[in-house]
């Protein structure tokens, strides 16, 4: 057996390994399906992304035939609608077994005792008769004002953030100048607190992702300075 072959023989198992996939490959199943058009019910309900806590309300549900787009009214069909509202943790809050018929659409009612906490609520509306059906799943957020919650930092808070940052940098510079590990440790603590504040409250109008990153970076730098300065004596 030639020497070059002996050297290359090590590559053969690898080659076989790659070729196994071709041997094991199963030919695709040839299946012919005929598209006969969409069928079912399209559910349209004008839900708002934000709701006020403790607000009572009603939801109008309009049903449409997916095939031809025609409105399905409670009078000309035997379709019934049910709905489930979920707490922010996913457990059932309210189950409505049958929606009320109202002119050409259906209505769901909820009282002021239903939405009592802040957070995201999920809901599913399901309409069907014996041979067709449809569903709609969505979510909304309950807030104290019924409007979008925006995280803003007041200008005074922002100034305080700058001040704490400047103080921590100043302390660090002073620690290097005086070779004082304790000042560096306090500087690290300040950076810790700064990072924590930025993570929780955000930073000015900076996007959530960026302020989170900034907060995490500050915490990491603070942890490094704090722990590293304490290890100077080791």
């Amino acid at each position, binding site marked *: 057996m030639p020497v070059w072959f002996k050297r290359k023989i090590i590559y053969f198992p690898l080659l076989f390994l790659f070729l196994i996939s071709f041997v094991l490959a199963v030919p695709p199943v040839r299946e012919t399906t005929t598209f006969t058009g969409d069928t079912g019910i399209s559910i349209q309900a004008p839900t708002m992304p934000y709701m006020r806590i403790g607000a009572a309300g009603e939801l109008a549900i309009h049903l449409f035939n997916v095939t031809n787009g025609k409105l399905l009214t409670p009078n000309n069909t035997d379709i019934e609608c049910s709905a489930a509202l979920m707490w*922010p*943790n996913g457990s059932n809050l309210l189950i409505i077994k049958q929606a009320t018929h109202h002119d050409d659409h259906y209505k769901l009612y909820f009282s002021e005792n239903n939405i009592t*906490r*802040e*957070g*995201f609520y999920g809901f599913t509306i399901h309409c069907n008769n014996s041979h067709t059906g449809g569903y709609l799943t969505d979510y909304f*957020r309950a807030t104290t004002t019924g409007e979008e*919650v*925006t*995280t803003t930092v007041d200008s005074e808070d922002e100034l305080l953030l700058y001040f704490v940052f400047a103080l921590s940098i100043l302390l660090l510079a002073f620690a290097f100048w005086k070779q*004082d*590990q*304790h000042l560096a*440790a*306090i500087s*690290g*603590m300040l950076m*810790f*607190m700064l*990072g*924590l*504040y930025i*993570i*929780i*409250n*955000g930073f000015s109008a900076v996007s*959530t992702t960026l*302020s*989170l990153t900034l907060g*995490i970076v500050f*915490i990491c730098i603070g*942890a490094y300075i*704090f*722990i590293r300065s*304490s*290890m*100077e*004596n*080791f």
Partner: protein
Amino acid sequence: MLGNMLGGFIVILVGVNLIPTIADQISTAGTNDGTVDQANLSTVNSTAFTILDLTTIFFALGIMAAGVSLAIGGLRNAGLV
């Protein structure tokens, strides 16, 4: 020697007093089971909360390192280490 010990004690004192504040802030940010309380926050998601939850541990590690450093410094000056 004395200045070193005094500085170390001040660092530990400040750190120990800051730990409850940090722990309170983190518990405000999320619930104990690791889920984020959306009622209080809009910035922290569950991944960030995991990192946030570690902050107290790192802070405590820093204080512990300061304490160990103080003890080692003292022992070294006494010629025991």
